[in-house]
């Protein structure tokens, strides 16, 4: 089959970040191509350009050899590019048929033609071999069925290129099988499919070719998947350019753990998980995206329910009900991975963003807080972390990503926390600030703080952790002292990920 979609030297920048840099990709009819990359590698940006959410900046997107530029998602749909997003995009109270024809309602004399609608929908469902009643209300379907309806919806508009963005993220193994059958049907019909997934097993199962993005660049460009092994693909995804930089060796004196989890079972899916963290240590939790690391710590902090097992803080068994408990009773801080949504008050000044954790301590008689006191605290940490701003009265929303991240770390330092959980600290941050951040984390541990670092960036992990625990499918599958030798550590970690217990197909 001939080439349908081509991406040539495509670049896209956002304030402070180069999201895509000269990306190339070529997709033929009847081909299933995997689009891989870690978080922040540029996959979503690429998909958003292909579907008209973002506009092309440099480089070209060609459809049947003709350069195209979509100024809206509708324009992309009309040109035959369909997409099934990670988030559900169906209207829950409408029927299956109503959803399928939503973008192109059949009409007769200005009114909706219900018979035609049903027919179009039925045809789309039939072509995929789906036994779903077109008159069923979408709300009553299972997540997997909704997914399939979305594919049918994409196909109802003469789709020749179908983008599937993590289609199996929230469905079970047997449901995924059904989905793959549909993908195979489409492939046989000549549709070009771009398949985004974090699950390498299924990628190897369904895809013919592969494109890997790393830091906005295409490091593998539409090559046959058969030419690569699992570890080679993972190595391409995580890279090793940072590995040879600074090496700082630290020794951690053995001591009593300050935070210990014993056989913890959580409602989000961990079973009998244990770990121990001691003061002055940087313990790294490594795993691919979706391995369950953030979910584990968020459960410990009371954000998801714990089913059984025990949490010990400084040797005492305890229950942490919420962040208030964690902060005020146990002196635990949590730097979230979503700094804009969860970490900061973008419309508040920097000093309030930093002082929020210490308002309780700063208050004087009758609960009064003096502005100067907030400023004093904020300025101390702005200086200590080297946050580059003109004044602590600046709004947090006006800072660059790196400085925002430092502000969201500063508030926990201001609160004198003894244990700090740092989740994906350097996603979307430039290389220089990243190195600076790494130094900072190790400095904190040197001062006696216990640091629990979650990162999907293996070079980062090897650069700063003292010990690395590897998680996969909500279980720890390996634990290694860090030699800070990238080649050695990456082999160990990758082996652990691949030899780990096989996927449970529920």
């Amino acid at each position, binding site marked *: 089959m001939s080439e349908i979609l081509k991406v040539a030297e495509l670049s896209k920048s956002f*304030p*402070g970040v180069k999201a895509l840099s000269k990306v190339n990709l070529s997709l033929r009819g009847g081909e299933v191509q995997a689009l891989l990359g870690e978080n922040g590698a540029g996959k979503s940006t690429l998909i958003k350009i292909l579907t008209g959410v973002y506009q092309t900046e440099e480089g070209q997107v060609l459809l049947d050899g003709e350069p195209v530029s979509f100024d809206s998602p509708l324009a992309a749909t009309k040109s035959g590019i369909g997409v099934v997003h990670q988030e559900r995009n169906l209207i829950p109270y409408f029927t299956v048929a109503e959803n399928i024809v939503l973008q192109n309602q059949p009409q007769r004399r200005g009114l909706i033609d219900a018979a035609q609608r049903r027919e179009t929908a039925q045809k789309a469902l039939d072509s995929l071999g789906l036994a779903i009643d077109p008159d069923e209300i979408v709300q009553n379907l299972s997540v997997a069925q909704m997914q399939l309806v979305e594919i049918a919806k994409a196909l109802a508009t003469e789709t020749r290129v179908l983008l599937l963005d993590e289609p199996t993220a929230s469905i079970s193994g047997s449901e995924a099988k059904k989905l793959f059958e549909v993908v195979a049907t489409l492939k046989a019909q000549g549709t070009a499919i771009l398949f985004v997934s974090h699950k390498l097993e299924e990628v190897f199962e369904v895809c013919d070719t592969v494109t890997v993005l790393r830091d906005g660049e295409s490091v593998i460009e539409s090559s046959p998947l058969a030419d690569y092994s699992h570890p080679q693909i993972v190595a391409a995804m995580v890279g090793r350019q940072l590995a040879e930089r600074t090496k700082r060796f630290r020794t951690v004196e053995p001591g009593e753990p300050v935070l210990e989890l014993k056989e913890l079972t959580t409602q989000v899916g961990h079973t009998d998980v244990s770990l121990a963290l001691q003061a002055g240590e940087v313990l790294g939790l490594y795993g691919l995206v979706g391995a369950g690391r953030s979910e584990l710590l968020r459960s410990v902090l009371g954000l998801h329910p714990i089913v059984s097992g025990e949490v010990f803080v400084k040797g005492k068994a305890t229950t942490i009900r*919420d*962040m*208030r408990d*964690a*902060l*005020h009773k146990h002196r635990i801080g*949590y730097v*979230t991975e979503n700094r804009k*949504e*969860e*970490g*900061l*008050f*973008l*419309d*508040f000044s920097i000093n*309030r963003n930093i002082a*929020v*954790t210490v*308002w*309780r301590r*700063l*208050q004087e008689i*009758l*609960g*009064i*807080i*003096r*502005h100067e006191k907030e400023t004093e605290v904020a300025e101390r940490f702005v200086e200590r972390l080297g946050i*580059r701003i003109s004044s602590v009265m600046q709004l947090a*929303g*006006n*800072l*660059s*990503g*790196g*400085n925002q991240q430092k502000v969201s770390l500063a*508030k926990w330092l201001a609160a004198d926390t003894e244990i700090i959980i740092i989740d994906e600290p350097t996603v979307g941050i*430039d290389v220089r600030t990243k190195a600076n951040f790494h130094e900072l984390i190790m400095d904190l541990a040197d001062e006696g703080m216990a640091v629990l670092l979650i990162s999907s960036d293996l070079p980062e992990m090897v650069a700063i952790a003292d010990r690395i625990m590897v998680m996969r499918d909500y279980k720890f599958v390996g634990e290694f002292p860090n030699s800070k030798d990238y080649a050695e550590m990456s082999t160990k970690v990758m082996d652990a990920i691949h030899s780990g217990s096989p996927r449970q197909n529920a």
Partner: protein
Amino acid sequence: MKYLKKRVRTTEFSLTVLFIAGFIALASTSGGVLFSDQSIRSFLTYLAIPILIGLAQMVVLAVGQLNLAVGAMGGAAAAVMAQMMVALNSPIWVALLAGFLAATLMGALNGLLVVVTGLNGFIITLGTLTILEGVQYALVRSFTIDGYPDAVKDFGKIVFFNVPSVFVVAIITAVILSWFFRTHVVARKILATGANPLAARLSGVSNPLSVFLAHTLSGALLGIAAIVTITSLGGINRSIGGDWLLSSFAAPIIAGVLMSGGVVAVYGTVMAASVIRLVDIARAQYSLDPSVINFTIGTVVLSTVALSEWRRRRSEVKRQKHVEVDSE
């Protein structure tokens, strides 16, 4: 200079200029009648309620919610005060305190229901609105209760240098509230909840507590509004509070308080209420149709919201550019 420039750009400043210009225009076209002691006194007397109910709405908007029951809460509280004095012969201070506490309690109840049920404040206060209207009716029926001691009405007639006592009450309340929002730890938490509930939760702020306290505070402010009502009007009937809802939203929204929460503007709300009051005066002055007033206020609210949205988007664009420069 930069400081001055910043001040001039605020909504508060625009409102102040608008008010002064409007007042002068009205006063001059009326041949100076507006400057008479009597006019100023009545202008300020009838400004007290719009200020207080605007503030009562503002504190709930601060956590990103609404209070549809402002009128019913104030009306029911005023009815409680009137009937305690008339039917139960309670001492004045006991009746006023009881009414104030009743309003505060209604606010607390709104807050509690929102927190416990997890439903939006819109639905909860829509429910309590209807219930409290019933309570108000049950208390006063179709009568006007005016048999309470003259001392109550006398308080409303006191003037200090031509400034009526009820206006002083409203201004003192506003000053205290403004101080509260600038300096108090609880206020900071309320604003944090409104600005970003997720971040607030992860920073150890209790969002349910913030929501509860905001509604309770709203109730307390309406308790003060009820006291002002009973002292400045001749009697209490079932229509008291019936027309509070629109102006309670109009003042804070015009002042730039966001529906999404996280922002308050006490001075701005006071100024916006004053501007709306001017429109009312203009109607009396030029014998305009009352529908003109509603039309004008509605238009002003819509255009202010549109203007602030436009401003927000423009600052967003600026912010983006700023970040780009910053990261170079």
